[in-house]
């Protein structure tokens, strides 16, 4: 495969091509990520949506150089600012992670140290990575906490993680993520554990980092509503592969892959939806994948033997709109 969904114009910040990740296990090789290609431009918000086990987190971990440590086998290319990262020594990866990429996860408690105040933790990051002095780091930490919307930031900098609510803790995580002035933030289900009114605030905050500060964001969620609120571009994952990639509006309003379309039809809406068309069956086992299209066993639009017998490549069905299917659904009017 020579083609890849590329975002035209600017030179991408991150460019991933044909990335594959497999985990050897006792039952066999788990093909968690299979020939995934995408790119993220500076300031762009790129969403990854897919069901549990579709490979979203493993893709993110690979981009951070963190899967090799888990014994994974990988192939493909990961370029950061044009520089190939696969094969670089761990020290180089660490430098990129520290200076360029920051992460926000679903559960901030696992990333925060319970025995230090949040202000102290952010100051430490600033002192190590940006070599700021103690006083300067302290001031900057308070500033960051204020910036992410913690009321009374100066006083609260002295509080410990457990003294914050879930939503406030996620803000602290984001302040921490911003401390090294990253060019890319990877947010993996950042609001899944939060109530809906709090989720809306955190999504606003992350979105504003991109709009106001030009930070690129890779946001992962299983929620198409979150994608709609956040992403400029959406990559839909199914069983380890990107099956559709296009601008958010194209994916959500004019999906052309059978899975994406079926998924949207199975979604209850808060605006009301008379009929839910369920997708029968379940995603395949990553150890014994179907020979053909991974969605073939469940596909309501499936075509001839080709679908059953060979796995389709990503095709550009319209400018910037990529679909991994033999069957191209008509664009909806």
């Amino acid at each position, binding site marked *: 495969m020579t083609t890849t969904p590329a975002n035209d114009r600017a030179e991408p910040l991150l460019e991933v091509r044909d990335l594959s990740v497999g985990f050897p296990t006792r039952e066999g090789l788990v093909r968690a990520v299979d020939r995934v290609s995408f790119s993220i431009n500076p300031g762009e918000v790129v969403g990854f949506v897919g*069901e*549990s086990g579709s490979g979203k987190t493993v893709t993110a971990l690979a981009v951070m150089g963190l899967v090799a440590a888990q014994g994974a086998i990988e192939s493909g290319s990961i370029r950061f600012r044009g520089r190939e990262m696969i094969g670089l020594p761990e020290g180089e990866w660490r430098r990129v992670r520290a200076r360029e990429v920051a992460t926000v996860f679903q559960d901030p408690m696992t990333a925060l140290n319970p025995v230090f105040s949040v202000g102290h933790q952010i100051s430490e990051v600033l002192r190590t990575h940006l070599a700021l002095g103690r006083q300067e780091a302290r001031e900057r930490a308070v500033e960051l906490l204020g910036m992410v*919307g913690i*009321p009374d930031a100066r006083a609260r900098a002295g509080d410990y993680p457990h003294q914050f*609510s879930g*939503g*406030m803790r996620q803000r602290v995580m984001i302040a921490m993520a911003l401390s090294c002035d990253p060019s890319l933030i990877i947010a993996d289900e950042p609001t899944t554990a939060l*109530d*809906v*009114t709090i*989720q*809306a*605030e955190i*999504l*606003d*905050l992350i*979105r*504003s980092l991109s*709009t*106001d500060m030009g930070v690129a964001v890779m946001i992962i969620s*299983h*929620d*198409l*509503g*979150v*994608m*709609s*609120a956040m992403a400029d571009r959406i990559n839909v994952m199914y069983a380890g592969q990107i099956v559709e990639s296009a601008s*958010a*509006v194209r994916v*959500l*309003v004019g999906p052309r892959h059978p899975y994406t379309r*079926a*998924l*949207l039809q*199975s*979604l*209850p*809406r*808060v*605006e*009301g*939806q008379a009929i*839910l*068309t*369920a*997708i*029968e069956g*379940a*995603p395949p086992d990553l150890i014994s994948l179907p020979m053909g299209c991974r969605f073939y066993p*469940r596909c309501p639009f499936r075509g001839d033997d080709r679908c059953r017998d060979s796995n389709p490549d990503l095709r550009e069905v319209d400018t910037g709109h990529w679909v991994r299917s033999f069957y191209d659904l008509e664009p909806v009017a």
Partner: protein
Amino acid sequence: MTALLDVRELAVHYPVRARGLTRRRTGAVRAVDGVSFTVERGRTLGLVGESGGGKSTTGRAILMLQRPTAGSVLFEGVDLAGVAEGELRNLRRRMQLVFQDPYASLDPRMTVGRLVGEALDIHGLAVGRSRAGRVAGLLELVGLDPKHAGRYPHEFSGGQRQRIGIARALAVEPIFLVCDEPVSALDVSIQAQVMNLLADLRDRLGLSYVFISHDLAVVRHISDRVAVMYLGKIVEMADRDDLYDQPLHPYTKALLSSVPSPDPNVQRARERVMLRGELPSPADPPPGCRFHTRCPHAQELCRVVEPPLVSASAGHVVACHFWRELRSTPVEVTRARTSRRTS
């Protein structure tokens, strides 16, 4: 005809005890604090609201899995709160619970056939050949292959496990189910399967549900009537479309405007109602209107006087001092574009 379920002024207060040896009682979490509603035969009442609002506690109290502190739960006219533990067993056959996490509630060492059959045995409902037949019939009813009765829970997917949980609940032929977040742990593509199954069973078997979920879209889809809970109280209750299309309570409006829509056009046009502050502790709920610490419309009155649940139109009740004014004047100060900074 009287309602199948008639819940009146239900309250559940959990004691809060001091740390240390004495475990002195220092207060109470008012998890549910005076909740009333009815459920008609064949109908579904949805309970929505954010974490800690008291939805699960309400569900458990209806089934007497948690004894109420006060109030009554009339099921087919009998007040369950006055029924002794020993006699509840028979009534429990008529009412069952379906949980969020099907895996945690299924014994991993038992085959699916045994898991479903066990429910029959407990109530001595079927033995011998008729038992095997009943098990097969139940599996079929929930869309599982009866040939798989010999398999173990881990051999099934999440959605299939939820079907097993439903088959178990249906084994004793209940007429009423409390479904507590039954699809929350499931993948989107599987959720619809289980929701359609629940709706289908309700229609075919004439079941009634109390359906609990924090997901407003899911609740809209399955419910006939919907109650919104905040800190142990119902703040608004109405027929489904009334509630979603003409919400009156500021909290309901905030909730509905916070759900991101998968339709980018709806999402872009959405006017968000922003809330201030954080969810207060139910151990120490704010005086007056419990929502006043976060409400964008709170006035002095709200801080002092608790608004009663009043009827706004037929079947539509709301607990807000200013629902009338808020209905006629559009929300002003509280608008914010979704892409804008919150602070």
